[in-house]
């Protein structure tokens, strides 16, 4: 019983981080209608930022998160300008597919640039805080995980507030749901695309900081997170923010429980199996919506 509860606690922590990592992918799919394959690269870049600021500057996790968010935002805007914008509205070009390929190309370039700068050797990022919190007899959670989950949940709440309360946050949903109407109201589509890519990339970079001390930071540290993000995003129903967050927690929990009862090596295969079943039963994902309704 206590092993089960222990797995639930760690599943919730992982789920929070998955949510932060994936929700950006959802925002981009909602507004730009393409899969952003650089989402994993931003996790990798966030990891390197964490390594540099924790190790080199001695900053704490919150400042590290802020630094990673700023760097991620800048990368996101640059990628939107360089690799996505030129493809929008081209006659006879399938935007969804070309933007998918072009962001994938950027992802490959970024991991090779990281390899060139930092080398192939993984960087270890120490946990920001040591010790464990004992919840019940036999169930404990490391303070580090709690801080990370706290930052993740705080980030999600801030994102929710931004999307539902602020002028540009609402504009993101407006562009996602009805582009023509949004433009007729003076909402600048390109600026919203930049903002969406910036925010999404910042979120992935924050996830990178949170994951940095769990996994080692290396040039391909973003590959597995990208795969997981794709699974979570598809499972949640592409384009639905609520569905994504729900899916992130379900998958985080499922992974922890599968690892507990069947062993870690089964967690990815079973994840893929369950996603295949979900796709067969419910092709739009958990909370997937029809084409005209996004975010």
């Amino acid at each position, binding site marked *: 019983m206590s092993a089960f509860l222990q797995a639930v606690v760690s599943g919730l922590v992982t789920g929070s981080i998955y949510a932060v990592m994936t929700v950006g992918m959802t925002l981009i799919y909602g507004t730009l209608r393409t899969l952003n394959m650089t989402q994993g690269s931003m996790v990798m870049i966030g990891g390197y930022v964490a390594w540099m600021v924790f190790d080199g500057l001695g900053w704490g996790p919150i400042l590290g998160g802020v630094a990673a968010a700023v760097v991620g935002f800048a990368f996101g805007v640059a990628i939107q300008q360089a690799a996505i914008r030129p493809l929008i509205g081209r006659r006879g070009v399938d935007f969804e597919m070309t933007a998918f390929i072009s962001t994938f190309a950027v992802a490959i370039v970024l991991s090779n640039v990281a390899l060139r700068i930092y080398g192939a050797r993984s960087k270890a990022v120490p946990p920001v805080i040591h010790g464990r919190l004992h919840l019940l007899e036999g169930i404990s959670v490391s303070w580090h995980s709690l801080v990370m989950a706290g930052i993740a949940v705080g980030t999600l709440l801030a994102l929710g507030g931004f999307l539902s309360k602020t002028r540009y946050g609402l504009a993101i949903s407006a562009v996602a749901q009805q582009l023509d109407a*949004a433009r*007729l*109201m003076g909402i600048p589509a390109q600026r919203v695309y930049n903002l969406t890519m910036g925010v999404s990339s910042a979120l992935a970079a924050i996830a990178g900081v949170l994951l940095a001390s769990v996994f080692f930071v290396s040039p391909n540290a973003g590959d597995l997170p990208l795969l997981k993000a794709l699974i979570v995003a598809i499972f949640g129903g592409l384009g639905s923010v609520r569905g994504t967050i729900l899916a992130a927690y379900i998958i985080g929990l499922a992974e922890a429980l599968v690892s507990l009862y069947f062993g870690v090596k089964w967690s990815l295969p079973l994840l893929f199996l369950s996603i295949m079943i979900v796709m067969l039963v419910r092709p739009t994902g958990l909370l997937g919506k029809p084409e005209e309704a996004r975010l």
Partner: protein
Amino acid sequence: MLEVRNLNAAYGQTRVLEGVDLTVAAGEFVVVIGPNGHGKTTLLRTISGLVPTTAGEITFDGERIDGERPERIAMRGLVHIPQGDLPFVDMTVEENLVLGAFPADAWRIRAERLERVYGIFPLLADRRSNRARTLSGGERRMLALGRGLMREAKLLMIDEPSLGLAPVIVNEVYQHIEQIVATGITLLLVEENFSHVQTFDARVLLLESGRVVREGLVGDLLADEIVMATYLGT
């Protein structure tokens, strides 16, 4: 306020507008009437920048706007209430309205504007926290009109406010349009059916096959038997 000269527009190879001339003076009420599929909606969409021009000029408030992005044109004070209403379906009525006040100057006074729109459309106030997708056709039309009133318009363009609504609801919508006209706003309205606008004191253009074939005051056209036979079936 608006001057359109020799406007041409096309969807791919299909020419839709073939040399339309149109002016709307400040404070004027102009109606474009024409059968479906003859370019009325395209005319409005071309003016607001959603459809590119293939030839001709559009001048708004003294400046050329053809070739500009729709969001830039909107910021100049052109409010276009589009065909099909185009609500943000997964947002609440209130969020939809608030987005109508997106330009910074309107955003600052959005609470005030919201009260005004709720005053005109009490029905929207009742449904303010409902998602737009749950609204009926008539309610969606009110929402589209309300959203258009959330910011100051130098020119208001309304695309076929009667489209797809039951006659009773159409009357209700036109009562609201009368209220809007009474404010003295510069208004360009598109309608398929002449009967909805025959009580207004407006200048009318008849658009057929992408060309303006007739122009005159409502009274002149009412006196024209051929026009009446074509557009009212009398």
